[in-house]
């Protein structure tokens, strides 16, 4: 083969000893995949804005946008047209080059992330089997970590180039927050890598299929830590200090208008999409359909296999179009669930104070994730030494992680949601001590609706 069709297949060829598609077919299928994934994810992002506004309307007992089209379904189109036609403002004191560069950086770094997420089982075509992932690169999730760590520059430049104090404060907050939570994010992923034995997302899905457990169960604490740092990395409530409209106007994009503002928005929502897709892939089995082994597929030694016989011989998989569609649906549902969680949390929780964010990041998340890495490593080592495999392996790990998760939640249970005991025997709330200089704790009479 003289022409190298792409570095990705190159690696695949070395690792699996065979190439499935001819170079031309690879090029064409990749182009189609890039086009489809990009346009679908942008459409999803557009409708996520509508979803957010409709759900927030529902949560706040109002209607939300429902004027444009049926149920307001054309609202994103109207917003898009409005943003494109609107006047672009340029602050007189802004640094023009960086002011224009910042939204571009933000949006590019946000939309390329989806490229490594596998979204369905491999699709059989007359020209060979096409993987349902744009780029199955060997570093998998490290690619996402790398590019999302670059995302700081977009926000920071936006805040700095605007030459506006609110914007600059927002930028400072966003970068310190992202740098802090990146550490916990990376550490919360290490148990996943240890269990899967690799960092490629396709193999993480496969290992979950093999184990028969979603990683959510054997690695429950890692999941919780990942969700928390995922919220912080996407700057969503309760971590939306960079925007904090009640203190900083809108933070780093205060000075932006029209399409540039919209680009920051698209970047934020595609981050949410990617993090939701990652949560689904890393912890909920990705595209695999639960309780069904018909969709188990993985490239092993150049062939698509569905598992191993008891003797260790690979069993060939049977890819089918309907399986691809079914797994695509499974993946979409899981991702949609997490998108809904993002929206739901935003309209439920209040914003942290800045010192609370830093406290949680450095004094809680970091030590807990380090300790959890050690715990999972020790458990896996012991289980390996005792040659326990399969279901028991997952079950023991689930039990150990369950205890760790229980302890974590119990210690953090500041408002006694789990342990109860909000009101002491004398009717005085045990929750918080009275403010200094004030003795007027709530009286114990039954007429007080707060206590009874």
């Amino acid at each position, binding site marked *: 083969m003289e022409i190298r069709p792409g570095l990705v297949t190159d690696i695949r060829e*070395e690792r699996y000893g065979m190439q499935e598609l001819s170079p031309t077919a690879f090029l064409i299928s990749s182009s189609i995949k890039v086009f489809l994934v990009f346009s679908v994810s942008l459409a999803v992002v557009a409708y996520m804005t509508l979803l957010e506004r409709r759900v927030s309307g529902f949560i706040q007992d109002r209607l939300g946008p429902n004027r444009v089209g049926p149920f307001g379904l054309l609202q994103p189109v109207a917003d898009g047209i409005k943003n494109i036609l609107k006047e672009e403002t340029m602050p007189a004191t802004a640094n023009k080059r960086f002011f224009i560069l910042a939204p571009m950086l933000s949006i590019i770094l946000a939309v390329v992330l989806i490229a490594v997420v596998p979204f369905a089982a491999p699709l059989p075509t007359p020209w060979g089997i096409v993987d349902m992932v744009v780029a199955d690169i060997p570093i998998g999730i490290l690619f996402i*970590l790398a590019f999302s760590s670059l995302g700081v*520059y977009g926000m920071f430049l936006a805040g700095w180039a605007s030459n506006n104090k609110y914007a600059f404060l927002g930028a400072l907050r966003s970068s310190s927050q992202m740098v802090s939570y990146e550490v916990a994010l990376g550490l919360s992923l290490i148990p996943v890598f240890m269990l899967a034995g690799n960092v490629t997302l396709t193999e993480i899905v496969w290992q979950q299929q093999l184990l028969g457990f979603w990683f959510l169960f054997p690695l429950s604490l890692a999941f919780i830590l990942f969700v928390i740092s995922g919220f912080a990395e996407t700057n969503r409530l309760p971590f939306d200090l960079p925007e904090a409209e009640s203190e900083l106007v809108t933070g780093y994009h205060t000075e932006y208008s029209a399409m540039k503002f919209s680009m920051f928005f698209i970047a934020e929502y595609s981050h949410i999409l990617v993090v939701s897709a990652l949560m689904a892939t890393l912890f909920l089995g990705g595209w695999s359909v639960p309780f069904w082994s018909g969709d188990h597929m993985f490239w092993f030694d150049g062939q698509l296999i569905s598992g191993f016989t008891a003797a260790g011989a690979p069993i060939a998989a049977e890819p089918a179009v309907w399986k691809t569609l079914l797994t695509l649906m499974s993946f979409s549902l899981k991702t949609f669930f997490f998108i809904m969680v993002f929206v739901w949390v935003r309209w439920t929780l209040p914003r942290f104070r800045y010192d609370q964010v830093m406290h949680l990041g450095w004094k809680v998340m970091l030590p807990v994730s380090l300790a959890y890495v050690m715990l999972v490593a020790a458990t896996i080592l012991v289980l390996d030494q005792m040659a326990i495999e399969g279901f028991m392996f997952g079950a023991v790990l689930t039990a150990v992680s369950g205890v760790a998760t229980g302890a974590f939640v119990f210690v953090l249970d500041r408002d006694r949601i789990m342990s109860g005991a909000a009101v002491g025997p004398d009717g005085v709330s045990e929750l918080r001590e009275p403010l200094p200089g004030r003795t007027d704790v709530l009286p114990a009479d039954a007429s007080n609706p707060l206590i009874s």
Partner: protein
Amino acid sequence: MVEILFYIFAAVALGGAIGVVFQRNPVGSLLFMVATLASLAGIFVLFEAHFLAAIQIIVYAGAIMVLFLFVIMLLNLGHDYRKDLKMGLGMILAFAVTGGIAGILVRQLGGAGTSAVEQALPGPEAMDQLIQEQGIIGSIARPLFTDYVVAFELTGLLLLVALVGAIAIAKRRV
């Protein structure tokens, strides 16, 4: 394809490096530096050292340069840097040291197949086999945590010293 990409990345890396030196604005310099680091990561990918590329971006471009950004932003930004430049002897010394390092690197790495570094490394076939056996991360992690573990821990200690020093300086000011 690989060659074209290599020249593109190399051009961006060199252009970025020149940009770092010639930019008046420190933030501009920093962005050029990030561009250089990112295109170096691209060259690593062309060498099929994917893990190194990812680490290059995560650690250098994503973490260290962000800290640089903090320092630049929080220090005095608008002030004229020219009087800080030490002309004369310092300049000559700086050029001499940089030139010396460049000379050593060219001597060690220049020339195909003859340099000391290249001969110390296993050939491409051995590398391919190593990656096949231990994976792209294992082939770096295993030597790092077995053969070179002392050097690795000492580097960690060095970073700790820097950290303690930074905290000591910060404390004294307050």
